[in-house]
C-alpha cells in the first residue's frame, strides 16, 4: 500500500471548508430561533445539532467535490 501525503495546503483547505460549514450550520440555528421564536440560549444548547449539521454539510460538499473530480477525470480520459 502506498503512503499518502496530505499537504499542509490541503489540510488548511479542508479546515476552512469545515469552518464555513460550521458557520452556515450556526446561521441555520439562528434562523430557526428567529423563525420559531425559540429562546436565544438555544445557540448553545443546540450545539450538538449544529455540529451534526456541520458534518452533514461537509459530507454533502465532499460528495459534490468528488463528483466534480470524477467528471473532470472522465473528460480527460
Amino acid at each position, binding site marked *: 500500500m502506498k503512503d499518502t501525503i496530505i499537504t499542509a495546503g490541503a489540510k488548511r483547505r479542508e479546515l476552512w471548508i469545515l469552518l464555513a460549514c460550521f458557520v452556515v450550520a450556526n446561521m*441555520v*440555528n439562528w*434562523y*430557526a*430561533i*428567529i*423563525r*420559531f421564536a*425559540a429562546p436565544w440560549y*438555544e445557540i448553545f*444548547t*443546540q450545539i450538538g*445539532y*449544529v455540529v451534526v*449539521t456541520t458534518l452533514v454539510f461537509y459530507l454533502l460538499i465532499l460528495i459534490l467535490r468528488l463528483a466534480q473530480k470524477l467528471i473532470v477525470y472522465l473528460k480527460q480520459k
Partner: protein
Amino acid sequence: MNRKEFLADCGKKGLAGVALSLFPWLESCSEKAQQEVKGEKARIGMIGTGSRGLYHIKNLLRMPNVEMVALCDDYRPHLENAAQYYPNAKLYDDYRKLLEDKSVDGVIVTTPLYLHGRITMDALRAGKRVFCEKSMAFTLDEALDVYNCRKEMNGVLLIGQQRLFDPKYARAMQMIHEGKIGKVVGVRNYWYRNNDWRREVPSPELERRINWRLYSEYSRGLMTELACHHLQNGSWAMGMLPEKVMGSGSLLHWNKDGRDVYDAVSAIFTYPNGVNMTFESIISNKHFGMGEQILGTEGTIDLVTCMRYTDEPAPKGSGMHQLVAQIENGVMSNSVFAGTSWAAETSSLAPGIPIMDNVTISTGESTVGAEADGSIEIMEAFVHAVITGKQPEKVLEESYYATQFALLADKAMHENAILTLDEKYRVPYEPMK
C-alpha cells in the same frame, strides 16, 4: 370543599373581600350573616307541596331558624304528605288564604310554572318575602310584571336558580373572570335524559295536574324546566346578555301520549361579541348526560364535573427541531390532500384539574333536585332575607334574564325565527364580574 370551607378558604387567602365583592349575594350565606340572624326565626309558608316542595322541606328541617307555619296545596295527598314533616303547620288548599295569614313572613312557591307569576305577585303585594322556583314566570310579559312588582313593593324575591349559590360554580366563575381559561369563545350546554319525563298518575283525570310539565298550557317544557339553569351560567361567565336567539324543537320520540311540549330542543344564543351559547336537550338518549362547559382560548371549564382543562399546546421542541419537522413536512406532504385540516380531531384526553376538592357532582337525572347543588345555600339566603328584609344583590336580574331567554328561545322555536329581546323587557343589568 363545601360552602363554609370555600368562604373560609377565601378568607385564609385574604380573598374574602374579593370573593364577596364578586359574589355579593353569597354574603347572606357567610358566617357573619348567619350570626346576624342567630336565634331569630323565619316564619315560612309553602305553596305547592309536590316533589320540589318536599325536597326544600327536607333541607329546611335542618335549618334551626326556620319555622314552617303554613302549608298549602290544592291536591290533598301532597298536602298531607308534607304535613307529616310539620304537624303544627296550618294547612290551606287555597293559596290566597295562606297569604292572608299574618303569621307567615316568607312564602316558598313550588307550584307548576303557569302559577309562578300570579302567586309571586299576590304574595309580594300581601307583603310577604318570596322564594319562587324557576322559571320566574310563564310569559315574557308576566316575568316583567313580576320584576316590576318586586321593585314597586320594595320586597324580597329570590328565584330558584340555585347554581348562583353553588360554591363550585362561584369558584369556576371567579377563575373564568380572572382569565384562567383565556378569552371565552363558547358556552356549550346540554341536558340529555332517556325517560318519558312522566310521573305516575293515580287516576286519568289527574294526568294534566300531575304531568303539567308535558303540556304547554302549564309549562314551556325543556326550556323553562331545564335550560333556564344553563342560560344563567352563560351570562354569569360572559358578563353580558345574549343579543339574539334561534332554535329548533320537535316532538321526536315521546309523541304518542298526548303531550304538546317538545322532547328535543336545540337553541343558539349569540352574544354581542359574537360568542355563541348553545343549549341542547334530548330526552330519548342519555349517553352524554348533562354538561355546562365554558370554552376559552386557553382552556375549558366543565361546571358540572367541576374540572378545568388546559388547552396548552404540546411542547414544541427547539427551533432546530421545528425547522427539521417543517422541512420533513414539506417533503412528505402531498399537495393534493392538503394540510392538517384533513386530520380528524378527537377530543382531548388531557386530564383535568379539579376546581375544588370533595365536590358532589350532579348527573342531571333527578327531576326533584340534586345534592349539594346550591339548593341549601339559596334556602339559607332566603331565610336570611325573610328575617332581615334585605334583597340579595344581582341575583334577581340574573334569574329574570334566564327566564326571559328561556321563553324567548321557546318562542323562536315555535315561530321558526331569530329573535331579540324587545327593549321593553330590558331591566337594569349589572354583569356579575
